[in-house]
């Protein structure tokens, strides 16, 4: 594990444009272990730090398939195998009647998988994170935009990185204690 005393360097910006500009430049300069923190989703910021794909859609699809298959198999097994009841001479495996519940189960499986998958991949709930050690970070859920270059990045040198960030004229640069 890292023995660095700090988590990273946090630069605070006033608007999304400045943040995205700095994030792009940092990525071009070779920094990789970094993140931006914004009060609302800024798509360009994610692009700038090289986040292009995620696996939420795949997990949602898997959830939908499991729900669909599970829902259908449940109805098939109940109605045709374990508890066959003759209703108006219909076949026990009367599949058109099973479609509504299959559909609902697919939607249910997909939704639960999507939400749980998103939370788990995001590592939430997370009781502690170093960025909250910074009092100014409260602005990240209000009206400020942050770029944090983490100390774990191989290119990270405290003084050089600070100088690099200063080039973008942020409102503030702070060391984030670990």
């Amino acid at each position: 594990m890292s023995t660095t005393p700090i988590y990273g360097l946090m630069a605070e910006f006033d608007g999304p444009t400045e943040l995205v500009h700095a994030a792009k430049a940092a990525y071009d300069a070779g920094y990789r272990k970094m993140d931006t923190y914004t009060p609302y989703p800024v798509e360009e910021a994610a692009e700038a730090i090289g986040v292009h794909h995620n696996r939420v859609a795949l997990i949602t699809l898997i959830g939908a398939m499991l729900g669909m298959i599970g829902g259908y198999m449940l109805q098939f097994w109940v109605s045709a195998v374990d508890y066959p009841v003759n209703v108006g001479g219909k076949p026990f495996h009367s599949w058109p009647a099973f479609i509504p519940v299959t559909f609902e189960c697919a939607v249910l499986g997909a939704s639960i998988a999507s939400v749980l998958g998103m939370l788990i991949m995001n590592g939430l709930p997370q009781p502690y994170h170093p960025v909250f050690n910074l009092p100014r970070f409260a602005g990240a859920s209000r009206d400020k935009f942050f770029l944090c270059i983490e100390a774990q990045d191989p290119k990270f040198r405290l003084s050089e990185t600070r100088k690099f960030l200063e080039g973008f004229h942020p409102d503030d640069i702070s060391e984030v204690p670990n």
Partner: protein
Amino acid sequence: MQGPDQLPPKGIRPPIIGPGQTFGTLTDRITGIVLTKHTPIFWFAIVGFALMLFGMLNTAVGYLLMKGTGIWGINIPVGWGFAIVNFVWWIGIGHAGTLISAILLLFKQSWRTSINRFAEAMTIFAVMQAGLFPLIHTGRPWLAVYWLFPYPNSMGVWPQFRSPLIWDVFAVSTYFTVSFLFWGIGLIPDFATLRDSAKSLMVRRIYGLFAMGWRGSARHWHRYETTYMLLAGLATPLVLSVHSVVSLDFAVSVVPGWHTTFFPPYFVAGAIYSGFAMVLLLAIPFRYLYGMQDFITLRHLQNAAKVMLATGMIVAYAYALEMFLGWYSHDKYELAMVHNRLHGPYAPYYFMLILCNIIIPQSLWLNKVRSTPWMLFLVAVVVNAGMWLERFVIVVMSLQRDFLPSSWGMYWFTKWDVMILVGTMGFFTLLFFLFIRFMPAISITEMRTLLPQAKVKE
């Protein structure tokens, strides 16, 4: 509190967000309702009154559980009565919430942003009221578990999956779960805002718990946005399926007046109609009491009125089609059904329904009505009453006179029926005002994206 609504000059539509807002002012205004130390007096008055009605609901349901459903007016031939009327009415009301939060999101209708949060809350609370009715209608809800849900019980008995009533159980419970998840993940970043804005440690900790450590990381937002869009995409067919399945409870039977194929679209249109009426019923007092005219502008009210007008016309078409199909079927029972609507003992209900759902809402063609909150409020009350009457007409009038005149009968509801209906309105109001007081009633995160400064400039 803001001044009265100013109509912009002719030809210009009112903005979807008042002028001069910044990220900071917007955050303060919305969190202010929750974090204030001075809860307004009207809040206590409304919640107090709602608690009284909630108490009445508990009394009536308690008595029902002791005595059985005989205290209601239901009997043979009308075995469904108020319980199913109210169930369909409440679940229909919920539909507008999902329409606003999911379908309008997919169509990139940015005006939905300031009303989606409380419309979603409305959905969840309305579905809760709706779910209550089939449960207590079973008379013994503690036994209903094995009637409704497939679980391996010791009797080896399973539900009947060919019945729309079981489809309904799945549709409504899925609908509730998905609506709750959608609402819940929308709230996470806003809880983080409340956590960071709160002054007291206790409040910070409580909202911090619900925020789950949200910090607005770009990687988190990226996955979050994907999930949000996917849930919207999933909720869209879901909401259409729920009221379609509810309508199949009727349409799959052979009862005259119910046995038609156009019930699903007819029910979905009616659901959205009543749901938007309920959105207006909640939004107009909310924006007035909390001075939110900058966030819920005349534009929102006008748009909601237009949706009501459009769905109201579909509903009017459906009423005409009901009559037409009765005549076109050339089936004497269907013809008798049409005759019964116009001349039977419940004809006044039918003509009231036409007045409330078709005639009075035509006033929405006038820009003056669409732009005057109190007039819209009155129309919304009338439409909600009309939609309740519609379900009454469908449920009661078809059952009371079906095939054999010897088995015809009348349905008289009792005071317990009325107490439970009014009680659920109280319960709904109670939940809604608790929500307004303790959760951000407008999505702060999404409102920020509406500001011009939220865009990244090249």
